[in-house]
């Protein structure tokens, strides 16, 4: 058994190995000549996968929790909406500003919030996310209130980004880039320090890791990931409502991370795919969407808290657990 285990570890050694199947999927799907509808779904999967990877870095690797991450998606989304519409800032700059704003908010809020642990941290992040959603819903002059607002198209050097197929490539490539960054981080001094923090903050501190600073850094990184995803989401849909930053959306993100596998970048894509595609596939179950989300979240946390990809990987390598 040990020999089989060592062989598995060998081909898993290169940090970017999981990019290969991910890139293959990206290139393979368009070969099926999908319609605009399917391109759109695929784009949504990649968009949410970006947010999931970011949240996974925070939860799966650093062992923290955020039940308010959709708030950052909302910041990114409303940035690309409000920038051009209300402030005359071109969409591309608005996109960048959204990301920087999310980073700043994460930095300011993260410092005190990350001193908390366990359910205190969970509820604090939850509260933070809901607060943002309330602000988006109330400040109708800026955000169009509960009904939302339209989002102008993004133009890249005179080339308008429209069409589901265009957004497919934009989101797929962005996902591959964000996955690469995450995989790079994991196999690095910072990554090891973060993973150590998850298991024992005290031991990490005693060994010289500045735990508070590392947690804050990864919180900021994950916020930027969410902001980028949120901006893409708004630009793809051409419309944004406060729901995009609400409590249910935050829980969906957590469900994606846990379902796919905490600590697995591939898992983030799997989790996102499941939670985006399932409601679409079972359209006549649309009414049951919330029940299904609740049931999935519960079942995964009860029966398979490690998630799909790590459980599969363990089964394949013959480990008993």
């Amino acid at each position, binding site marked *: 058994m040990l020999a089989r285990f060592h062989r598995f570890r060998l081909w898993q050694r290169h940090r970017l190995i999981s990019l290969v199947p991910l890139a293959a999927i990206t290139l393979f799907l368009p070969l099926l000549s999908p319609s605009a509808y399917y391109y759109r779904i695929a784009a949504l999967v990649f968009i949410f996968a970006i947010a999931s990877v970011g949240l996974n870095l925070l939860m799966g690797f650093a062992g923290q929790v955020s039940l308010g991450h959709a708030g950052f998606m909302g910041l990114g989304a409303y940035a690309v909406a409000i920038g051009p519409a209300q402030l005359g800032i071109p969409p591309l700059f608005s996109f960048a500003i959204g990301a920087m704003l999310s980073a700043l908010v994460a930095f300011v809020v993260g410092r005190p919030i990350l001193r908390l642990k*366990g359910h205190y941290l969970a509820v604090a992040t*939850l509260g933070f996310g809901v607060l943002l959603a309330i602000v988006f819903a109330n400040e109708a002059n800026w955000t169009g209130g509960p009904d939302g607002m339209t989002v102008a198209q993004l133009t890249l050097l005179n080339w308008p980004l429209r069409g589901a197929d265009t957004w497919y490539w934009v989101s797929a490539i962005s996902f591959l880039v964000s996955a690469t960054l995450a995989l790079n981080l994991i196999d690095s001094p910072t990554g090891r320090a973060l993973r150590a923090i998850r298991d024992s903050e005290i031991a990490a501190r005693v060994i010289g890791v500045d735990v508070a600073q590392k947690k804050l850094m990864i919180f900021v990184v994950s916020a930027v990931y969410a902001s980028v995803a949120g901006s893409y989401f708004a630009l793809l849909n051409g419309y944004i409502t406060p729901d995009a930053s609400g409590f249910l959306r935050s829980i969906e993100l957590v*469900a994606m991370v846990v379902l796919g596998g905490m600590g697995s970048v591939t898992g983030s894509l799997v989790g996102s795919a499941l939670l985006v595609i399932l409601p679409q596939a079972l359209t006549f179950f649309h009414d049951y969407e919330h029940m299904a989300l609740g049931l999935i979240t519960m079942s995964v946390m009860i029966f398979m808290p490690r998630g799909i990809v790590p459980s599969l990987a363990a089964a394949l390598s013959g480990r008993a657990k």
Partner: protein
Amino acid sequence: MAEFLQFIFSGLTVGAIYALVAIGFTLIYNASDVVNFAQGEFVMLGGMTTVFLGYAGLPLPLAALVAILFTTAVGLFLYYFAIKTARGADAVTLIIITIGASIFLRGAAEIVFDKRFHSLPPLFGDAPIRFGGAAILPQSLAVLAGAVVIVALLWVFIDRTLFGKAVIATSANRTAARLVGIDIRVIVGVCFALSAAIGAVAGILITPITLTSYNTGTLLALKGFAAVMLGGIGSALGAVVGGVLLGLFEAFAAGYISAEYKDAVAFLVILAVLFAMPQGLFGKATVERV
């Protein structure tokens, strides 16, 4: 002055509900270390079930009773099928499980009931009682009375019965309680059942004033949690005081600052307490042993 008094009345009324939700939280947390997010759904189910059973033709007192029993059953289900099965999971996993349960119940309510707001007839009519230039609804008095009765009954149960002592023992040290023969599953199950029943009663009492709908649970759970944090997690007295205080803060903020951001008060309270005074008013700080 009249305005001030008016805010006090509305603050106390809604504060009483927050206090009941907070007590439900505390009961379950003390017995099992679980922060039960579905607490708000118990309140929602109490009100909504009564309403729809009423529509179905049941006399309201009977409908209320059935609703309370039904919600209690839901609470027991939640414990036995979700929490007990996940035994040994860490705090965050457990809270996410209860969040999943709350979303599930909310989704089910959306389908079984509907998405509109519903009301119940008030217990003692709706003629407001004038007092010092302010008006208080008879139903508000019913809510306050109900809350006092429930807290008193709970106190008698915990303090004066053998079963109540078992609950205290379980809260203090689960392993020791098991070693002296207490069946934890029964104790925790009863706490879930009690919390659900209390929540349901709260829901029935408040519906004539604030109306109810499938999604009122979520916000209630968050506010109940804010009350618990303010009062100090694990303290029953804290739960009551925290709930009432939160209701008052909300009423004053809505009246004097901004009605739109009324709901934000609870979250600001959570964040403020967590940063300034994490153990709350009556809780105790814990130390991690290395």
